[in-house]
């Protein structure tokens, strides 16, 4: 049995991870700024990254649906397998729901999202201040939920690898050949 994800799955995983690690602090930082061209630029970059994440996650789901992930090592407890499935499922839901909520918020606040300043996304909702504020709250809550789940996700991987001493990180790691567990 393979003990690694396929290379496209690995590349997409890390690409999305890096983009989330840029977009999240950017979002936290930019919304406190006083209005300036810099702020407007950061908002645009944040939105462009968000749209990109949404599309890449769509690609990941399509890949996942057509490729079987490597099975978890034998020593992992049943409850952890269940927890892992739930967290992975929620991560996918959030990685789609967060850009979606941002896009809708942007429309409700009266600013169309134009991907890379070139590709306009349709406004699915009309400009509406209350809805905009509501969606801002939703966007933020979903993001902090994501933060908690990402911490769990990373902690679990590190725990399996370093504490349980299972060969775990190479499942999603770089490198051509699957390492044989010791």
């Amino acid at each position, binding site marked *: 049995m393979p003990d690694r994800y396929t290379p496209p799955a690995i590349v997409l995983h890390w690409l999305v991870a890096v983009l989330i690690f840029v977009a999240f602090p950017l979002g936290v930082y930019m919304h406190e700024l006083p*209005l*300036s*061209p*810099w702020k*407007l*630029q950061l*908002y*645009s970059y944040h939105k462009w990254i968000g749209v990109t994440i949404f599309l890449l996650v769509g690609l990941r789901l399509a890949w996942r649906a057509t490729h079987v992930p490597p099975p978890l090592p034998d020593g992992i407890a049943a409850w952890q397998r269940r927890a892992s499935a739930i967290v992975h499922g929620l991560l996918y839901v959030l990685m789609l729901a967060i850009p979606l909520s941002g896009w809708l918020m942007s429309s409700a*606040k*009266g*600013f*169309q*999202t*134009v991907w890379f*300043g*070139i590709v306009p996304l349709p406004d699915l909702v009309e400009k509406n201040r209350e809805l905009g504020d509501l969606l801002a709250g939703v966007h933020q809550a979903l993001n902090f939920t994501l933060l908690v789940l990402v911490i769990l996700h990373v902690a679990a991987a590190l725990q399996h690898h370093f504490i349980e001493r299972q060969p775990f990180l190479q499942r999603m790691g770089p490198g051509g050949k699957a390492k044989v567990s010791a």
Partner: protein
Amino acid sequence: MKALSLGLLALFVASTAHAVEYTTVLPKQSRVDFEFRQMGVPVKGGFKRFVSQMAFDPAKPEAARAQIEIDLASIDAGSSEADEEAAGKLWFNRSAYPKATFASSAVRALGNDRYEMRGTLTLKGRSRELVVPVHFVPGKTAATFDGSFVLKRLDFGIGEGMWADVATVANEVRVSFRIAATGK
């Protein structure tokens, strides 16, 4: 004789109808809006309060005149954050220049109810000549005068300093208006 007097009456009615001069602006049915691009994103805004005077007789368009005074405090710049920013020194510097004014100097008929109005727009202490196309649409209760034109915000020092970078906020601003008026 009867036919003649009816004919005269008809002529009289026709000539008075033709001689309607539009002089009373209806503020509630009038609007002044604008649109600009910010990081490639179209942003709409407008002004809620303005006072406009005009006199327009379709029979004597060259004698027409119009002026408008816009209360810059009534701006909707797309968001409350932008509304506040717009009042500042770098934008409209509203405490020093609370109003924008336009006064026509000449009107020329282009045919098909279309006109060209020349005039001076004064904004933030700077005056510029403008040529504004106007479409006259006669209506049952009120006529409307519609038009739109593009101005360059930097011609008027709107958005100075860090905002002078037109890559973030475009220099071109499309202004569109509808002035509704009744006549006597």
